[in-house]
């Protein structure tokens, strides 16, 4: 306990630029999460529509794809994609990465991390979207058919706007999970916050003073707790607003770690 409350250990964090070093790493995590989220949403929508397609073969393939990827541990996926990815892909990414990204995000290994996170999260989001779409009353789709709308019109005008709104809370929960999962890319030596924490505490500074490892990781943990709490607050707000606007409650989406948020709302 003495170690935890020793003021010197906490002071160490704000001396020189230790805290900035960590915080810059944390921003890398947030950026990875944001980029992965955007591509996962696109991929997830495609997979959900594929799984709901009337084409039996397409539905089967999409279903199998989704079930395999979302049932694998995400760390395994990250390591596998990293080790199995041909060097030419990484080089192609390094060439193609837009210049406005920070240097860390322009390295080839980040491509492996992003691809792995998108493979996993698009599968999870596909299931959330499917549940959102399927929770709609059949009559909605039938009415749209009766009005003479084509498949794409039906999806774009009637089904998706309602279905996607219902999946918002579950999506935010998944975003929180994704946010936490970005620390896992430390294993392929991307310099994000967990890796930076290890770097910072890996060697003894100035004349044998040991870096306060416990404090460093408590601070890293707090960064995530604050961000994720903010996200879940936002989600709760949106949910309540939605309920007031439409007078309906959100159907829970099953099969996910973070469905808790939706169960709770009922």
């Amino acid at each position, binding site marked *: 306990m003495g*170690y935890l409350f020793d003021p010197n250990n906490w002071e160490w964090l704000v001396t020189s630029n230790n805290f900035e070093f960590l915080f810059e790493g944390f921003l890398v995590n947030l950026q990875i999460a944001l980029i992965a989220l955007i591509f996962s949403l696109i991929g997830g929508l495609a997979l959900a529509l594929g799984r709901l397609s009337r084409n039996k073969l397409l539905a089967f393939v999409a279903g199998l794809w989704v079930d395999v990827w979302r*049932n694998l541990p995400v760390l395994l996926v990250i*390591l596998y994609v990293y080790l199995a990815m041909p060097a030419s892909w990484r080089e192609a990414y390094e060439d193609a990465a837009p210049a406005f990204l920070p240097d860390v995000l322009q390295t080839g290994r980040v491509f492996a991390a992003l691809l792995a996170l998108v493979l996993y999260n698009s599968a999870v989001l596909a299931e959330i979207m499917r549940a959102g779409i399927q929770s709609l009353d059949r009559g909605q789709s039938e009415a749209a058919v009766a009005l003479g709308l084509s498949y794409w019109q039906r999806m774009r005008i009637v089904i998706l706007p309602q279905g996607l709104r219902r999946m918002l809370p579950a999506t935010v929960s998944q975003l929180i999970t994704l946010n936490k999962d970005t620390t896992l890319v430390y294993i392929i030596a991307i310099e994000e916050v967990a890796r930076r924490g290890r770097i910072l*505490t890996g060697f003894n500074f100035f004349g044998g003073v040991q870096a306060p490892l416990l404090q460093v990781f*408590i601070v890293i*943990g707090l960064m*995530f707790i604050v961000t994720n709490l903010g996200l879940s607050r936002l989600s709760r707000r949106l949910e309540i607003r939605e309920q007031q606007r439409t007078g309906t409650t959100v159907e829970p989406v*099953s099969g*996910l770690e973070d469905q808790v948020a939706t169960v*709770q709302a009922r």
Partner: protein
Amino acid sequence: MSSWLELLTDNFGALASGFWVTLRLVGGSFAVAVVVGTLVAALRIAPSNWLQRLGGVYVETFRNIPLLVLLFIAYFGLRRAGLPINTWTAGIASLGLYTAAYVAEVLRSGVFAVSRGQIDAALSLGFDQRDTLRRIVLPQAFRTVISPLGSITIAMIKNSVIVGGAVAINDLLKEARIIASRTFETEAAFFWAAVGYLLVTVAATVAIRRLEQRYAIRR
């Protein structure tokens, strides 16, 4: 494909030992998660405002912190602070305490899903508070939470990989990585590890579906 099978037979001992380590890790953490999760859920529905808040702080802390960071705190952090914690204790405690936050939330939602009328009816029939909880509320609450508890268990099985990624415990993925770096057969080694994990998650899914069919209440 034949070389893949060969890799499995050549390294069966290592993979099986990793699989067994993963199962033990999952089993131990599950026990911690259920016990602590129940206690935290009890705090969350306690009549005292302070206890409720305490439970809330637990849930929000452990649900929002990355498991990897929790493991670094529990293992390297505590060791640096002078507490000689070993890898298994740190691994099971971290995974268990992390999962307990989710278990607590599900149990709480299960209790709240039992309608108020049930409780009123029990009380008016002369059940006391304890018996109402034990005989009326909890049996029904348990049935509504089977499915979400199942999803949490499956997520925990997948999260057990992170323990091996952070501290020196040779679980299934770690064994596969060792094999991959020795034989350069990355695809085959990871394929068998993935099969191992899918085996556990699919078995858990089937078991949960059975339980659900027997006990669950559809609301």
